[in-house]
């Protein structure tokens, strides 16, 4: 064992800044990459992480983790575990692989950016480990996804998804390019490691690891638990950065957190919400999405921001109301536009499942039940065509997800509302008031054509469902379909048909 303790020498490793004399400091550290803003430059010298690590410690720990993660994999390769997994669970994993693998690689670029443009040597070193971690996550995720391609072509989207113009991917790229690659490193450290990694990845990783184990997918549980162990180290870049920013510019700190939290919440409502409340087999569900959000995100997030002297975001009430609505609306949208997905979305509305939903979400039947009844009756009348899309949904100009959030009017009815604004001679439409406000505040960066804008501008040809699916990169072997219509419609066979389905059948 080396005689000196890490703390006796690590100071030198961090003490690597000096005053430039041959080039401008502003060229080495351009403000729009470094983002010091109102924070005096010297304030960054106080940046210090809690959890320190040396290079030899890092490679020793990581080598071991890698060896055990891949060892579980190869042990399970010889078993038939995969063949017995529930389709709904498989869909959750396909969605995860496609939605996450290359985001992890985008996070490599995020870490690289902090490792290059961070205004403190200690921060740059921490991010140098961080970029290695993110490479690990990208590689382990794609490796595991790749293993299943031979069994199911939808796993091809583990790597392909981010290259396509599928609407889910445009939304995710917009969120993550905006959160991980575009911001200056101060905003980045608060958006990614602090808001996203300490908050939302907990949800995705802890919740999905638990659901994976329940569903018997030891491989997946093992993979994401192993990934999660790295987050604790590199996610701490956010804390020291926020501490310094709050001291000098609390208004900016609040805005950066508010924006990142909102964007993450929208994306998770689309992906994690349906996976937890609809795809995971009923007998394996431990908590509802809402309960998980409350336990893992909301309590922790509120605790964190209050610790730094910040307030709950301005949109808090709208967000909290959305916990009962957003992901249910999105689940219906995902299922309805299922040919545009790279997984097989389960409807998940059999009588038992509906009873569970109604218990967890008291308004569920009122807001969503009648719409699902129409779909159910059409399936039972062998009129599948009526359950398939012929048109496109309106997509929100901020989150790029379908504008499908019902809100309750004063008279008690639930309606999907349009929030809009005028900018630069055009009307923009949003799914929520929060999305509209964020667009307005950040319009120079986030103003980007939605898939619908592209369609209306004639960029997608031919202008029909086939043309749209082609533009999105969907091929017939991948296009999603319900894995088992009977599973959730058989409870309702023979009941009297009402409303729209009746009209459709006559």
């Amino acid at each position, binding site marked *: 064992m*080396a005689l000196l303790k890490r703390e006796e020498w690590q100071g*030198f490793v961090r003490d*690597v800044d000096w005053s430039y004399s041959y080039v401008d400091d502003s060229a080495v550290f351009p403000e729009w990459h470094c983002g010091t803003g109102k924070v005096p430059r010297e304030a960054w010298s106080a940046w210090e992480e809690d959890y320190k690590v040396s*290079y*030899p410690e890092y490679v020793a720990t990581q080598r071991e983790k890698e060896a055990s993660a891949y060892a579980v994999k190869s042990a399970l390769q010889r078993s038939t575990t995969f063949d017995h997994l529930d389709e709904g669970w498989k869909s959750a994993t396909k969605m995860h692989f496609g939605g996450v693998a290359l985001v992890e690689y985008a996070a490599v670029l995020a870490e690289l950016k902090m490792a290059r443009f961070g205004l403190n040597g200690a921060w740059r070193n921490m991010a140098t480990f961080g970029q290695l971690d993110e490479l*690990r996550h990208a590689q382990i995720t794609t490796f595991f996804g790749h293993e299943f391609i031979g069994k199911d072509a939808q796993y091809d989207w583990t790597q392909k998804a981010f290259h396509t113009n599928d609407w889910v991917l445009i939304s995710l790229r917009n969120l993550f390019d905006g959160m991980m690659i575009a911001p200056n490193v101060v905003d980045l450290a608060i958006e990614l490691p602090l808001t996203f990694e300490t908050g939302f990845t907990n949800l995705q990783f802890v919740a999905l690891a638990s659901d994976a184990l329940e569903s018997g997918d030891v491989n997946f549980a093992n993979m994401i638990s192993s990934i999660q162990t790295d987050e604790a180290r590199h996610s701490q870049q956010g804390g020291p950065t926020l501490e310094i920013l709050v001291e000098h510019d609390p208004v900016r700190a609040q805005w950066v957190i508010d924006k990142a939290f909102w964007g993450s919440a929208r994306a998770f409502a689309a992906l994690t919400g349906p996976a937890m409340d609809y795809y995971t087999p009923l007998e394996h569900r431990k908590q509802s999405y809402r309960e998980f959000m409350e336990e893992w995100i909301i309590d922790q997030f509120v605790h964190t921001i209050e610790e730094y002297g910040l307030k709950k975001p301005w949109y808090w009430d709208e967000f909290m109301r959305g916990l009962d609505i957003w992901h249910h609306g999105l689940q219906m949208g995902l299922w309805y536009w299922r040919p545009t997905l790279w997984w097989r979305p389960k409807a998940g509305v059999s009588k038992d499942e509906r009873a569970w939903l109604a218990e967890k979400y008291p308004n569920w039947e009122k807001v969503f039940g009648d719409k699902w009844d129409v779909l159910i009756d059409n399936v039972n009348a062998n009129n599948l065509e009526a359950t398939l899309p012929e048109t496109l949904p309106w997509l929100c100009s901020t989150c790029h997800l379908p504008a499908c959030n019902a809100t309750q009017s004063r008279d008690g009815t639930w309606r999907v509302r349009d929030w809009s604004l005028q900018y630069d001679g055009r009307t923009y439409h949003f799914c929520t008031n929060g999305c509209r406000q964020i667009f307005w505040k950040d319009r120079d960066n986030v103003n*980007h054509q939605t898939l619908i804008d592209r369609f209306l501008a004639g960029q997608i040809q031919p202008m029909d469902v086939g043309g749209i699916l082609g533009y999105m990169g969907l091929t017939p072997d991948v296009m999603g379909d319900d894995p088992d219509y009977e599973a959730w419609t058989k409870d309702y066979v023979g009941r009297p048909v009402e409303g729209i389905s009746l009209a459709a059948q006559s």
Partner: protein
Amino acid sequence: MANRSPRTQKTWSLLGDVRRKPSTYEVTAARFHYHFRKEPAPFELDPGMPLNLWYLKYREGSPFQVDDWEEFRDPYKLTYKDYVALQHDRETYLDLLIDTHEATSSVTRLDPAWVATLRELFVPLRFPLHVLQMTGLYVGQMAPSSFITNAAHFGAADEMRRVQRIAYWTKVLANAHGDELATTALARGAWENDPAWQPLRRACEQLLVTHDWGEAFAARNLAVKPALDALLNSQLADLARRNSDEFLALLFTEFGVDSQRSQDWSSALVRYALEHRPELREVLTGWLGAWQPRVVEATEPLAAIFATAPAAMATDDVIGAVREQHRAYLELCGL
């Protein structure tokens, strides 16, 4: 609705109709930069926002360009898993080396005159080496293919490794030969003011403001780093050996393993580029034309310190050896 294809797919469809199943190295890196040459702008944000323009200018717009970067392979084919395993072995070796020398207190037997040389030549090294870390990360951040990015950022982590071991040994030297060796004032003072370091500092500062990804790669991996590595990993190791400092000789020889890996992938990349577009030779030699004189100027005053060590090496011999190693490397690159 979905017609399942009867043919079993071997790998990612984006790799085309490949006959053999690609290696894990390929599967976990191929086409990971989903934003490279994406239309109308790399990132899914306003096409005119600053970061899109930055990448369009310095990556897509770099003169160092071939039609397809995706076929480039790091000769070591390192995945993350391989990298940490490889470096864990190397670090275990360095831990043992340190243990051995600490057990015999070899540092206390160093000639004080040699310690004076180290004070001048060894202690300030963390500054330029941290620049290699930062600029290596930048090359990775801007590279057009993940096969390049990954090799570049393993290399950047290697620089952090080197800085950490140097930091450790600086403290060991200070404990044995006077606390002053461990002061920031001494290290940064020399780096900022000692005339011997100024040309290297100038080159490092210029490297930090080189934003074109091709030039950043050429300046760092073909000019500054190979010359500095030759000076440290071979010449300084040699000087240490002559001055009975076995530890430092072996330490820098060990760093030479990392430098060799850097040169192997960098030269493979240059050969790949020249094979695909021979006219890139002029682009690269153009950049080297600007950077080589800076590098020569940077190494000369440091080589002069070699002549002041108790068991000295002639300045011209050191310069000649560095130049020869650098020349041989560029020849390997096909330049």
